[in-house]
């Protein structure tokens, strides 16, 4: 089972679009990962995160929709499996003075530990109380850990940055349902 983690960044939504895209690199990484995930993933997210997930899935479907009849070799190309999981979550929002939650000295350490847990295939290894204090959105990760055993060797990081004082990751991983 394929699993993808994306952050619940509202700036990804077309309804908040500007003339310039402030999250172009993140958007590209998210769309590539969701395309890898395959059609019709189950979404594990907050209601706000579900909107981000719905946009990403819809955008991938519209981009994959053929504009012209496909040549035979394209039809024969391997397609992503169905039944993946799209998790919407992110690290702290208190990493800098300009961050939404202002600077909290504990943020960098918290995010480092969470990054280590995620890349080790342990998405549920997170301090939920501290996450709330640091404005981190980790509920999806806890729910994922309850449902899926992630193969640590499968985890790859497509995006890892905090452009607005908020820690974002785009990760791909594989696992089996518990």
């Amino acid at each position: 089972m394929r699993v993808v983690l994306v952050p619940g960044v509202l700036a990804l939504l077309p309804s908040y679009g500007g003339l310039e895209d402030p999250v172009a690199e993140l958007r590209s990484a998210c769309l590539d990962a969701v395309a890898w995930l395959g059609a019709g993933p189950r979404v594990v997210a907050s209601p706000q995160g579900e909107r981000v997930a719905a946009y990403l899935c819809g955008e991938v479907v519209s981009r994959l929709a053929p504009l012209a009849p496909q040549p035979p070799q394209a039809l024969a190309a391997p397609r992503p499996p169905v039944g993946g999981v799209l998790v919407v979550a992110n690290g702290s929002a208190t990493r800098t003075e300009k961050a939404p939650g202002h600077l909290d000295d504990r943020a960098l350490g918290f995010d480092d530990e969470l990054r280590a847990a995620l890349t080790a295939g342990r998405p549920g290894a997170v301090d939920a109380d501290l996450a709330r204090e640091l404005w981190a959105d980790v509920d999806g990760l806890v729910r994922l850990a309850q449902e899926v055993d992630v193969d640590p060797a499968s985890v790859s990081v497509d995006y890892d940055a905090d452009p607005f004082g908020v820690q974002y990751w785009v990760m791909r991983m594989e696992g089996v349902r518990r």
Partner: protein
Amino acid sequence: MTLRLGRHDFDDDATLMMAIVNRTPDSFYDKGATWAEDKAFERVRLVVEQGAEIVDIGGIKAAPGVEIDAAEEKARVVDFVAQVRESFPGLVISVDTWRAEVGRAVCEAGADVLNDAWGGADPELVDVAAEFGAGLICTHTGGATPRTRPYRVEYDDVVRSAIEDTVGYAERALAAGVARESIVIDPAHDFGKNTFHSLEVTRRLDEMVATGWPVLVSLSNKDFVGETLDLPVGERLTGTLAATAVCALAGARVYRVHEVVETRQTVDMVWTIAGRRPPRRAIRGLQ
């Protein structure tokens, strides 16, 4: 309506800055600052850098003064238009003239638009615009003679007069063969109008926009701003921008200006408030 100004097309929702470039020794605002050809060319280069889509080149000041015949007007603008055309192929070149003879010469030199600030005083100007595929600005002057000041002018309804005259002019242009998408109407603030007329035209500009013809406004540093605020030329920018904001909210498409940067910011801000343009880059609260 999509705008086609000579060689250049603009989307339905585009607003355009028309920067004033005077080849005159005596215009009210710059007082001859760009009278010399090299200074005028520097002005063109500056306003292009500032983002103006159009330059409006004029060889005669609007106010009364020394008579400038067609030959002298052509001497002031035709070669200059050719020089600008060669240096700035992507720029819309408008020429502020009411004379068909001058219009023909500047179109041959590469002009895209004829800005008839005197409301069809020369009836053959529309034929020139049609022949060259040029845009045409149809203004309202209340029938004023070119280069005269208003004197005890009154209207039953100045906005109705402006609409009837400019739309009538636009339809004459259309009948003469000017493309529909190349015709713009302009209420012409201060032209054939006292300050109360110009304020009312500003307040009710949405009625002109509702005609469906693209609307140009020329507000920059004019006397109606000065009289409203009791400020001389040189201190009217804030008032100009306030009037600009009102016209932008009403939906004016083209802004004839001295100050490009400030007007562009004002129009973009209002256009965005009106929901016709997204913010440049929005991330606050959306991280």
